[in-house]
């Protein structure tokens, strides 16, 4: 048990190059899951791949053998529609059997287009309706403080999700309660479902908003595993304050025609497009070896 209480995440012998390779494999996995299911959100998952890899391989104190370990760090995918990336990383990390990914959105299975609590090991709470995750994490963090539990809560939010008023109600209460065991990460890919967020409901000055709500803010390149992990391993950024990492990302990252294109929020590639995606991901992977 001392292993779990160590400040570092569970020991992994993977190098950054290994993790970068993993990112390519996960992207392919995400696309394959959605395509074979005939549904699911690809581009929103692609934008969060490096964030999830950093969390699950470099940051979170978790034990796949014991998903209910009381001292584990909690991760909540508040932008639940990005779940293909979560399922893929949970499989990579051993919470799920790889074959389970084949049941994604299949008739009669529990692994749906949004993650559900109690049905998938490693999923800490049901999400899918945007703007809920941060409040739930506050409840978990408050209980941890009261119980002297050293676990931390990490929540991944979408930038569009931050349009929801409930996100800011939660943000206000996290600093009121001095939750330095709470970390929000925003997948700031600059797009929501119907276009660019600056044209629909702008968030800027975004870092200042969080700051004025009492959070300590860092900004990172959300596709740089080193930078994301290093930053997340520095939490809490300030004593008695919640931490937020604004991760600048690209929606659809890794597949050129999906990148920064609002059409791909909820669309599946056709045969030709699929081959093109495979080709680009393969070339990326080759360039690392």
């Amino acid at each position: 048990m001392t292993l779990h209480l160590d400040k570092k995440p569970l020991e992994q012998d993977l190098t950054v190059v290994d993790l970068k390779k993993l990112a390519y494999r996960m992207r392919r996995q995400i696309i394959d899951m959605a395509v074979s299911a005939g549904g699911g959100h690809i581009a929103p998952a692609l934008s969060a791949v490096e964030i999830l890899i950093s969390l699950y391989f470099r940051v979170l104190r978790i034990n796949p053998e014991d998903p209910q370990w009381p001292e584990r760090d909690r991760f909540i995918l508040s932008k639940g529609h990005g779940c293909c990336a979560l399922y893929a990383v949970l499989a990579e990390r051993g919470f799920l059997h790889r074959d389970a990914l084949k049941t994604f959105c299949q008739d009669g299975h529990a692994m749906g287009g949004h993650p559900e609590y109690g049905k998938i090991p490693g999923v800490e709470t049901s999400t899918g309706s945007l703007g809920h995750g941060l409040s739930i994490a506050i409840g978990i963090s408050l209980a941890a403080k009261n119980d002297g539990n050293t676990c931390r809560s990490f929540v991944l939010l979408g930038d569009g999700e931050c349009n929801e008023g409930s996100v800011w109600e939660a943000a206000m209460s996290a600093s009121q309660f001095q939750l330095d065991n709470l970390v929000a990460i925003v997948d700031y890919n600059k797009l929501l479902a119907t276009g660019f967020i600056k044209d629909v409901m702008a968030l800027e000055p975004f870092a200042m908003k969080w700051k004025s709500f009492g959070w300590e803010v860092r900004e990172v390149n959300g596709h740089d595993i080193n930078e994301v992990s290093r930053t997340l391993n520095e939490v809490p950024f300030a004593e008695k304050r919640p931490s937020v990492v604004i991760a600048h990302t690209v929606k659809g990252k890794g597949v050129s025609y999906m990148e920064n294109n609002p059409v791909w929020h909820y669309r599946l590639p056709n045969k030709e497009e699929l081959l093109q995606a495979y080709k680009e991901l393969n070339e990326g992977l080759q360039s690392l070896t």
Partner: protein
Amino acid sequence: MRNAFIKAVYEQAGKDNRVYMLNADIGVFVFDDFKRDFPKRYINLGVAEANMIGVAAGLVLSGKVPFVYTIAPFVTMRCLEQIRVDVCLQNLNVKIVGVGAGLAYGVLGPTHHAIEDIAIMRALPNITVISPGDPWEAYEATKASVRHEGPVYIRLAKSGEPSLVEHRHNAFQIGKGVTLREGKDATLIATGCMVKNALCVAQKLFCEGINLRVINMHTIKPIDHDIILESARDTGAIFTMEEHSVIGGLGSAVAEVLAEESTEKVQFLRIGFKDTFCEVVGSREYLLAKHGLDVPSVSKMVANSLRGSPVQ
């Protein structure tokens, strides 16, 4: 149904400059024509449903007729208090439109299913609740909602629903159920996409010697008392069928009328989701079958019930 709604709202906006279209970040491109031709009257509020309803209420207080639109659970339950207080309490002319009725978003899971929305909306004073059975009806309901003074909830499926050609000769009228098929042995009252299934059930049971009347109850509130009582009198048995919980929806609305007003002894059964979320995901068809709401299951349930055998 979504496209029929969008076409109707576009046409209404052309005729009536009070018509506004408010969206909470869904449907990339589907409102492009509206945006191009009525740019000031298209407002995308981002992922913020509660704000959208409040803004709509404010527009009504300044003489506008706003439609608010997003996925059904989010346009009803996410912003329920705004609907109750800002819209219904003040009896304001907001037209609430939810896409993805019932299990239209089957694989996206329970957060995206809408199987309690009718019950919740129906409980609010002043609101009219419409659940169209096909694209034509969605189009007509949208038009009628502009003529109607007061809050309206229109519950749309998604896309690709078959038309129910049978009722084209009937003008759409809020609050008036439509008899789609005559029958004397029992009455099947359905709403939304279940109307099509009800017709299939009737067809199937006809071959087994059971002659069902089928009613399309596109308006759930106000419910058509006359057509319910008349069917009770004529057929002595009423079944309701909806892609919704049996609690508070069409079945409850019909039961209330029968319990309080019918002078006959009527056999009665509600067919819908039995106080449960979907435990697994799947296509709409898969999940309907799993919950006993597909044509074969409903046919069996109705036949058994009429023959006095156990229903399940």
